[in-house]
Structures are given as C-alpha cells and as structure tokens.
C-alpha cells in the first residue's frame, strides 16, 4: 500500500484526512510544523508527503526545500484550501508534483496519492487554470526571448490542460483526443517540468510580488 505523511498545521484537518484515507493508503505519521515535518518525513520515508501550502514558519515551500536538501527523491503532493495562484505556483515550482484542493473526496485523494507515488503529476482543474494563466503571457513575446522547450506550452499540452480545467479525467481526455492515457500523463509531466524549470518572468511574477522567493 502507498505510504504517506500528512503535514498540516490544523489538527482537525489532519485527523479528517487520516480518517478518510484509512484503509486506502498507509498513513505513517503527521506533523504540524515545518520542523516536525522535516524530521518526520526524513525518518518515515513515505512514498508521498501530503503537504499544506500555508503553514506558519515558511509554509510547504520551506518543508520541500529542507527535505530536498537531504532526500531529493522525496515526492510531494500539495493539498490546500488556498486559492491564491501565487502560492500554488510557488509550491509547484519548489518541487511538488501536484496540487489538489481540500474539498476533494477521500477516494479521489487516495487515487491522486497513488499516481504521485508512481511518478505522475496530478493537476486539479484549478491548478490547470493557474498554469494556463501563467503561460498565457509568453505567447505575445518576441520569439528570441522565449525558449520553446521551457517557456511555452505546445498546442497539445494546452489542449490537455484545458480539458483538465473543464473537469475531465485523464482517461476521458485520452478518449476525446484519441491518444493513450500514458500519453496524457506524459503531457502533464512535461508541463510540470516546464513549470519548474522555466525562468520566465511571468511564472515567478506572483511569487516575487509576495516575496516568497528571493
């Protein structure tokens, strides 16, 4: 069974997620602060860390940074009520492999955890919308300033993201676009890579405005 550590500063919420995931995934532990989280994750070595975006002491971004320094292969899935695009983009750029909102059902969450554990990226409709927004500014830039490998989405990637934002599941997208589900997953992983590696101003704009990154 896939193993997780839950990191969230709200006790009630941790208890709720624990109860919902009971029997679906193996909850190894939970933590309420950045410090405890780093220690718990490095000790328990779960397949996936369920990570709250907004926490005192630097938030989920800080947890990822400290853990990645010692266990770079650790996988994270952001789980938040936070709607702010800048927060979500910042935690994805820090290294989380997906973002789902806290209103997600237990079975869907367990499914998302499994997919992250297998190395896939998990995009909720909301995250897909943020990403489309973040890359929208690059379309009007002069081609010389854009690295198409990193700074622009391919038409196919855009199409996949638009379907996610419209509420389609990966297998439904595969059916509609007449491609395999593996190809859909490959597109989403490519988008995640671009999101994390692109240096384009538009992607880091929100984060810089909020002084989340230097």
């Amino acid at each position, binding site marked *: 069974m896939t193993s997780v550590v839950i990191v969230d500063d709200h006790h009630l919420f941790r208890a709720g997620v624990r109860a919902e995931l009971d029997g679906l995934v193996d909850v190894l532990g939970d933590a309420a602060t950045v410090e405890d989280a780093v220690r718990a994750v490095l000790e328990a070595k779960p397949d996936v860390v369920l990570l709250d975006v907004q926490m005192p002491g630097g938030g989920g971004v800080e947890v990822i940074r400290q853990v990645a320094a010692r266990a770079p292969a650790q996988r994270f899935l952001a789980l938040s009520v936070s709607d*702010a695009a800048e927060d979500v983009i910042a935690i994805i750029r820090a290294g989380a492999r997906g973002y789902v909102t806290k209103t997600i059902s237990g079975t869907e969450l367990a499914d998302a955890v499994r997919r992250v554990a297998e190395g896939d990226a998990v995009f909720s409709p909301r995250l897909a919308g943020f990403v*489309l927004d973040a890359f929208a500014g690059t379309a009007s830039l002069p081609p010389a300033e854009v690295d198409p490998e990193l700074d622009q989405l391919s038409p196919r990637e855009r199409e996949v993201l638009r379907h996610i934002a*419209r509420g389609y599941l990966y297998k439904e997208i595969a059916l509609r676009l007449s491609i395999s589900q593996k190809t859909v997953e490959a597109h989403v992983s490519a988008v995640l890579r671009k999101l994390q590696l692109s240096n384009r101003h538009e992607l880091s704009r929100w984060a810089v405005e909020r002084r989340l990154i230097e």
Partner: protein
Amino acid sequence: MSAVPAQQQQPLRRDVKDGIVAGVCSGIAKRYGIDPIILRVVLGAATLAGGTGLIVYLLAWALVPEQGGRSPSWARLAGRRETWLILTGGTFLLLSMLLLLREWGLWFSDAIVWPVLLAGGGAALIWRQSAASAPPAEPEPAAPVRTRPDRPADPLRALRLPTPALGPAAIGAGLVIAAALVFLWLNDALAPARDVVLAVLVVVAALTLILAPWWLRLVRGLSAERAERIRSQERAELAAHLHDSVLQTLALVQKRAGDPRAVANLARRQERELRAWLDGGRPDPGDSLASSLEAAAAEVEETHGVPIDVVAVGDAPVDERGAALVAAVREALVNAAKFAGGAPVQLYAEVGEERTEVFVRDRGPGFDPDTVPEDRRGLRESIYGRMDRHGGRAVVHSAPGAGTEVELVIER
C-alpha cells in the same frame, strides 16, 4: 458701515462684472468693504512710481480666482507644459520693463521697489492658499485598500501632511522672507545684526548637536506607537469581521447539524465570502467577466445546492456581448444543477484576445441533444438564441450516461 458680515465670509474673488480691467480692485473692495475708487487711485499712483502697482495688479489677476467658481487662471495654466516657458518669459519681460522705468527715473528707490515686488508675489501666494475654503481632499484610491492582516497599511502614510497645500504657501513665505531680507540689506540695517546672527547660528548649531539624538528618539517612538495602534485597530477589525461572518455561520451549522445539505451550503457560502474578503481588491462583478461568472455560479450554487467549481483564465471588462454570455452561462449552470442530480458542476472560462470560451460540464446522467423537445425554452431561447443574437455559438455535447458539457463561444 456697509461691510456685511456675509460678504466677509466669502473668499477673495475677482469681480469681473463690476470691474474695469479684470475686476481685481472691485473684488478686493467688495471683500473688505472699501470703495474700489480708493484702491484704483492707490494702484495708479504705485504704477506711475516705479511700476509696482502694475506688477501687483498682474499678480492678483493671475492668482485670484474669478467670481463664479472658475479656478484661477494660474491653476488652469499650471497644468500645461508651456506655462513654465511663458512664466519665465513673462518674468524677463517684467524685469526689463522695470529696468526701463528705473532708467527713466520713474522709480522710488531700489530699496523699496524690489522688496515690495517680492513681498507682493509671496503674499499673493499665501493669501490665495488661505482664501480657499478648504484644502483639496486627497483623492481616494480607486481600488479598496487591501486589508490583509499580514500586511498592515503603511503607518507613515497617515503621518504625512497633505502635500499639495504646502507647496505654494512655502514658496510664498520664502518670497516674503526674502523681500524682508532684501529690504533690510539694501537699507544697511543688517550690518549690526550680522554679529547677532552669527552668535545665534552658533548657539542653534550647538543645540542641534545636543538635542538631535533625543529628538530622533522621540520621533521614532511616536511612529512605533502609531504603528502599534494601527496594528491593534486591524486586529479589532479582523475580530469584528470574524464575529459577523464565521462565528455566525458556525452557530447556524450547529443548529442545522441534522441537514447535511444545508450545512454544506452554509460552509460553501462562508468559504466564498471569506475568500473574497481575503482577496481584497477584487473587481466588482459589474466590471470583470471572470468575477461576473463567479457571481453567477455562486448564485446558482446557493439556489440549487449543487457545488460549482469555477476556473477562469484571463479576464476582460464586461461589455454587451459579455453580459449576454454571462446570462447564457447562468442558464447552462441552472440546467446542470437541475438535471445532474447533485453531482458537482465544473465551469471553465478562457478569455482570449480573439474570443471568450466557456465550458459548463456536469457528471449527470446526460441526454441525447437531438431528442430535446421543442418547448424546452431554457436551452432553445436562453442559450442557443442568446448566443446567436450576439454572434456567438453554443454547442451541447452529451450522451446518455456520459454527462453533459455545454460549450459557449463568443468573439470579442
């Protein structure tokens, strides 16, 4: 006496109607209850003797506003760039005229004319300032100030004086002081004072050195105290907001704990309200397409008790087409809420440069669009018809068992 109190209350205005040239004398006379003839004679005499009267008159013309609410010629001109060129040119012209008069002997003496000119200019500036009934209010910022608790408003901002009122008054005061100094200097009255001034300057310098640290500490302490006060005010505001919103909702949730649907509804509404509050300067639904769609979704969600997830990419002001689109989307949302059996509805809107696309998707039982009866007005009129009329299109993708998606596209 003819001076009526009501007239005394009025600010100084040029009286163009009763005046001869620009109504300066007449205006001043009315304001202070004197006969304008006296003023005219005095001005005339001053003009003959060195041109001072003329200068004073021209200054008053420019600085004193006309009766009937128009701003002074000075203020109307000050906004323009070429005004400063004209002003410089005018000053040189004036100087050359004065020198000419001086050459001809129409002149009191240097010791009187120059100081009077400076003092006249300065006094006019100061009077103009105090004559205005109230300093212009600082313009309100267009967007509501963000009141996120983690970012208090700049405490120093409130400490600053309104700057627009300071400029002209300071210049005026400077001119008057300069006039006094020039007058004293030209009359050799400063020579004995020089030693005193030196002594005073030395004492002031010494006092500054002694008192500066203390004074700085005082200022810092004051601003710290002010910042603390602002912080506690914000805390109080936050507490009030939480009480009015979150605590009330929690009380309602406890009361209606037996009705899961009502509880979920209450929670969604509270969540939306808090988010809007945290987001602060969000545009009004009337101005932004994305906000309008969100507002429509919120309304349908509340009426029908079905969760609607809204994702919007890009934004634009709402025009006539945008309004039609929002209305059609609303109808599609209502349909989805009614026929999808309570399953969540997904609304996706993409505002591009050429067109706006909106998708409303539900995971309900679905239907065959070809078998919709002709009398289903919701779909025919409110969606297809409305989009047609505004040069857009609507397509319904659905099949029994596969959910429904309504696609609405409108060119921008």
